[in-house]
């Protein structure tokens, strides 16, 4: 479940970085337009991957149900962070993805 929530969080961070108004909230410096263009496709890829992981971990019926739950919680967390602590969003996304990938490989 933690894995799903972390992956959902990273997905949502990518979607959010693809939007100009949120990118400026989160990032200190400007980044190249080329990189920005990759955010959304990457976000979709990660979304698909998260969906795959959810099915792989919990099966066809429970997996997608938990996926929606994970996305709800992750998005709530992201929205609150964007409003109150926007600067730590990228760090948190990276840390959570590392934890998520570690727990996948360990288990």
């Amino acid at each position, binding site marked *: *479940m933690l894995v799903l929530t972390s992956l959902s969080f990273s997905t949502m961070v990518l*979607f959010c970085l693809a939007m100009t*108004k949120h990118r400026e909230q989160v990032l200190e410096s400007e980044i190249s337009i080329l990189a920005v263009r990759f955010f959304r496709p990457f976000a979709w890829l990660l979304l698909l991957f998260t969906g795959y992981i959810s099915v792989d971990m919990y099966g066809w*019926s*429970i997996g997608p149900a938990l996926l929606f*739950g*994970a996305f709800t*919680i992750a998005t709530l967390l992201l*929205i609150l962070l964007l409003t109150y602590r926007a600067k730590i969003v990228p760090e948190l996304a990276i840390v959570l993805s590392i934890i998520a990938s570690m727990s996948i490989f360990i288990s």
Partner: protein
Amino acid sequence: MKDNFRQSMKWFHTWVGLVVGWVLFFMFLTGSLGYFYQEITRWMEPERPFIAHEVSTEKLLDTAQIYLNKHAKGVDEWDIMLPNARDQNLRVGWRHLVDSGKQGSRYKITVLDALTGEAVASRATGGGKLLYRMHYRLHYLSTSISYWVVGFCSMLMLLAVITGVVIHKKIFTDFFTFRAKKGLLGWLDIHNVLSVIALPFHFMITYSGLLFFLFTYMVLSTNLQINDEEFDEMLNEIYPGSTHLDSARQPSDMLKVSSLYQQVKNSWHADELSYVEMFAADDINAHARFVRHETDITYNPDDEVTINAITGEVIAVKINKYTGAGIIHNGFFSLHEGHFAGPIARWIYFFTGLIGTAMIASGLILWTTKRKPKQMKKANGPDFGYRLVEQLNIGTIVGLPIAIASYFYANRLLPLDMANRINWEANIMFISWAVLLIYPAFRTAKQAWSEQLLFAALLYFMLPIVNAFTTDKHLLNSLHHQDWNLAGFDLTLLVVSSCFAFAAYKMTSPQLSNKTSAQRNKQVSKRVNNKIVIEKRDHPSVQVTNDSLLPLPQANKEKC
């Protein structure tokens, strides 16, 4: 009819939400608590023992069977429910004959002490189940009226969810947008965010909720189109019951449940067993059904193993046969109730339920916030309708949580030998709610909000303390025994208390001071950006007005 489609949808969303909002708030809050009804019941029966660590499943099964052999001799079926993440006590259940000349029998669960094997005599309490039942079986109303009221409200909720999506112009652009500002803009953002992030849940829970009483709501359709035989056939298809052999009245020695369990262990992982059902015990037809936690939303035949209790052989019958319709129906029920959810998923269910509750609350508050500037300008003060909505808002949004706290207080403080104790627990809950609904009539809105919020914070903070004075199942003891279920309940109460305290603090604290507001402006201007500059120009008053609300025309420019 309003001038265009979106406008009329908006009108519909507003008024539909308002009319049933308070009932929906009640349904969502008690329903969300329902995800933890077993945990709540355990807390409300403090006579139950603490968790017994490191007792093997076999030992638990033996303990239960010894008790059942003594007390449930000759019953058609008895069950052993093993301690699990939700309820950490060993329980047994069977149908008891109703005494005093009445016909029929009633299923009763008895909690056993896993160490001594004795039954635990708990106080009379409605427990979590009563609280959870309230969300579809409105307490004082008759069953059929409740179902119709609940159905009507759910139907309007479903319409509100759909119209809400229609009127949300920038659902993707504003997906992550939440501006923490007082007044209309802030509330609108809160309402949008809470609605959008949990939209799949809102839709699923409302739609599946309607399916529960399908044959009550669609009674005409089923009555007119099909005859009784077809109706029975359809019911069998949707609710496939498990069949089992009845007692042949030929006593026979059966194997111990714990030794039958060895068979099951071969096909399952360790500690997966959830409960055991024994049919025709000590009879030649005796057989046991071992059931583990659900591993599939719809139905997984591997989740149960039936064993002949005389020979110890696995009986290879798949009793339940689900058709497509049955799978969909069962799937929606399971999604609604979250049977498959483990501890973390259960918390997510609970939180998402609370998000739904908060969404309804924010919608109700939004109604008054939007009308406040106009109403405040009226010479004779606000209209009766406006004041009524505000009063009901305060009395429900803060009043209901307080009422629920008083239900818990009643559980701890009412005399144990009181007649009709269960009813009085609920009565006290509703009496407190009634008082809190009336109270705001005598205070200004702001006073009523902050006073009730503070009162809620105080009540929830005191609850673990009252628990410590009245029982031995208090936080220190439960932490010492590592009984996370009981400790979690008390800790959650403290968290709820601090949330109310924070809300009360926000309510009473002076609005954003000019200094912080200026700091914020500075931060924004540092990141010079066309869009932000435009936004600032568009809404200059947002930065300076705090308590006062946005003028309506400007607010209308904002998306809804």
